[in-house]
């Protein structure tokens, strides 16, 4: 499947990503992590921790945050930013839920 950057792409059924879990979406430009956060919303960010590239999709999800499995940086899923005192940011992507399915816009948010 080839996609342009500003179109909504269906990436999952809601049921595939239970609350407080994350999954991986593989793209031409690397991996994106999709999360079902504690606030009930879905968020997508680059699946590579700003610290040393840890796979964020594998972290523990709490509220609107994920803790990186490698060295425990905490990233804000809404902004992609690392919580203080760490500094760093990952790209975020627009996500919407429609009719039981999750859609993603690759153009970034």
């Amino acid at each position, binding site marked *: 499947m080839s996609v342009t950057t500003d179109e909504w792409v269906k990436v999952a059924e809601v049921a595939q990503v239970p609350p407080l879990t994350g999954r991986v979406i593989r793209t031409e430009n690397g991996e994106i992590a999709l999360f079902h956060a504690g606030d009930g919303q879905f968020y997508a960010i680059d699946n590579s921790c700003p610290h040393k590239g840890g796979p964020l999709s594998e972290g523990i999800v*709490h509220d609107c945050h994920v803790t990186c499995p490698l060295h425990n940086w905490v990233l804000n899923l809404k902004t992609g930013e690392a919580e203080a005192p760490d500094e760093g940011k990952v790209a975020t992507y627009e996500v919407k839920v429609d009719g039981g399915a999750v859609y993603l816009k690759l153009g970034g948010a």
Partner: protein
Amino acid sequence: MNVHTKPDRERLVVIGNGMAGARAVEEILKLDPARYAITVIGEEPYGNYNRILLSPVLAGESTIDDIMLNTPEWYEENGIELISGVRASAIDRAGRAVELADGRRVPYDRLIIATGSRPFILPVPGNDLDGVIGFRDIADVDTMLEAAEKYRHAVVIGGGLLGLEAANGLMKNGMDVTVVHLMDTLMERQLDREAGEMLRRSLEERGMKFVMPAKTAEIVGDGNGRVRAVRLEDGAEIPAELVVMTAGIVPNKEIAEEAGLYCERGIVVNDYLMTYDPRIYAVGECVQHRGVCYGLVAPLYEQARVLANHLAGRGWMTYEGSVTSTKLKVTGIDVFSAGNFLGGDGADELVLKDEKGGVYKKLVIENDRLTGAVLYGDTVDGTWYFQLIREGSDVSEIRGRLLFGQAHLGDSGHGEDSVANLPDDAEICGCNGVCKGEIVAAIKEQGLFTLEDVRKVTKASASCGSCTGLVEQLLASTLGGDYSAAPSEKPLCGCTDYTHDQVRQAIVENGLKSIPEVMKFLEWRTPNGCATCRPALNYYLLCAWPGEYEDDLRSRFINERAHGNIQKDGTYSVVPRMWGGVTTPDELRAIAEVAEKYGAREVKVTGGQRIDLFGIRKEDLPNIWRDLNAAGMVSGHAYGKALRTVKTCVGSEWCRFGTQDSTGLGIRLEKLTWGSWMPHKFKMGVSGCPRNCAEATIKDFGVVCVDSGYELHVGGNGGIKVRVTDLIAKVGTEEEVLEWAGAFIQLYRETAHYLERTAPWIERKGLSWVKEQLEDAENRKALFERFRFSQQFAQRDPWAEMPERHEDEFKPLVELV
């Protein structure tokens, strides 16, 4: 908001807006902010302030603004009615209302008395003259500062902590100060004679004068109603235009006593801080609990927590009294004391004295436990000693090095020079590269009080935790006396104030069966916790309710979800179980095949006698497991907080020295214990003779076979700091070995904190405690039974179970290419 218009809620009234009263209110708000309509009545005309910092204010090292804790706005924002500047004059218990000095009545449903105490004013002639005061509140400090501008001579009566702080402050304000003390030792309630002497000498060097032992007979007036001198019993007169009485404190119990509540020295309360009237509670210095009236904040804070727990309807905490510690807040002089520092019958004393260097340390040890400490000159280890005292840790092992401090302990990962002497650029936290200067600056500038605060702001000690002791020392040395205000045990994480033990207790006693239930019951501050508490709660629930609690995979670290160790490039390593380290050609063939088929980038033999396949992609994991399962192998749990491996030597089967079948026993042990989840990883070893080829004496549970049976060793580990095991028993049969192993594991599972290995757990609980628990045959059997019961549910191969249920989750959702 006016509380009287909210009759739908119970009305909670607090008399006394001091440190204990305000803290109790804060604790209640934390647990259940909407439960009560709260009114606070305070005689002092301000919000609430940190009374203990009045000394630095007097010494000009701090200001009143700096020490304010809760401003009037705070009360407003939290919907609390604050009636300040008015005294409560009586309690009408029948009418359930508090009467105020200005005639108003404040009705209550529940009442907290937190009236604190007042200075004891000596019953001598002239004690009511102008210029004769105590040292208790802002007004007293104002009086002293004014006097220092106008007059020259001050006498402080009472050479305790408070008196010396007052004297020091007055001296700093230019006064000529004499301390009159009844005893021949300063601070005799905190210091022994040696330390008292050293303290006196260094204060004298600064210009403070002492007359002691001496008894005050009269305060002499100048004819105009102001004090002129203090006359002693022997007739001597000391000139004084200001007299500060710091000869003790008197609990403010009168308002309770007059209302008919039972009082002795203070207002008598039970372990819930309840008075003899169940609607009325009391907290703080006005209270007498189990015969003790406290005069320091740490115990009051503990009381406030218990009281709040009770008033918020939780009702599962009890207050059982406190061990206290004190630190003199005179800049440049370091004095620390805690517990039973005088020693006495059956107590041993360890003493270090360096007169010239100005250092004195005395530690009191009873029954292998530290029970008291006095430190003069070098107080860096005060926090550590205090912790050992409170936790009742067994110190027999470290006794020889105890006096030299934590830095010389060597085996707990804190091996550094005493932190106070370190330069600012010394690295404290190796994991996150944080230096001393950064931590100290953060503590000062951002007003940090707890370890958790420091972790959040600087990241120091947030990772491996081995620098925790150093960070705590920095907190203690930077905050001085304030640090003792921290709760006596650390909270589980930033999401809660409860400690590991309190959380476990609440789970068991209240039948809490899920993570959301625990968080709700204990009022977690975050909606779904964090990566620290969720795995801990998941483990505590698994341990408490075997077979009932359903493991929450979302609260497990990725390794335990993917049943493999995540590596730094995001791939996984896979380790099949090899019982007792024994394998077969068939198994090796199967391993070789999967290694090739799935492109393992490295094949390595581990220290635990297993084979580790590195560089496996996540989506291949379910397949590789299937292949290994088909060859009869199961997960090695090499990734989990669980039983890892049982390492064995060849023993009597092959070795000429072997005394028993160590390999066979190792396999039996592994079959018994595999699959069990633990607070941390757990390793075992069985050696066939004391040559100990299986390194059993650095394992969590090790067996060394001898001709006459089996020696059982516990609490060892390799790791950053090697710890050798302690011998706990010698038994005669394999059956007994299995029973002891199972019972030991269960004891560890039930009482260790999550992520606490057996070594620190044993050091915390004490080897003799562990021994006692296991030597009691009935208790041992019961532990073993509980272990076996929980094993019924735990011994499932996650490799065999996982793929069917969750295989999909190991792959990307979609590939957009």
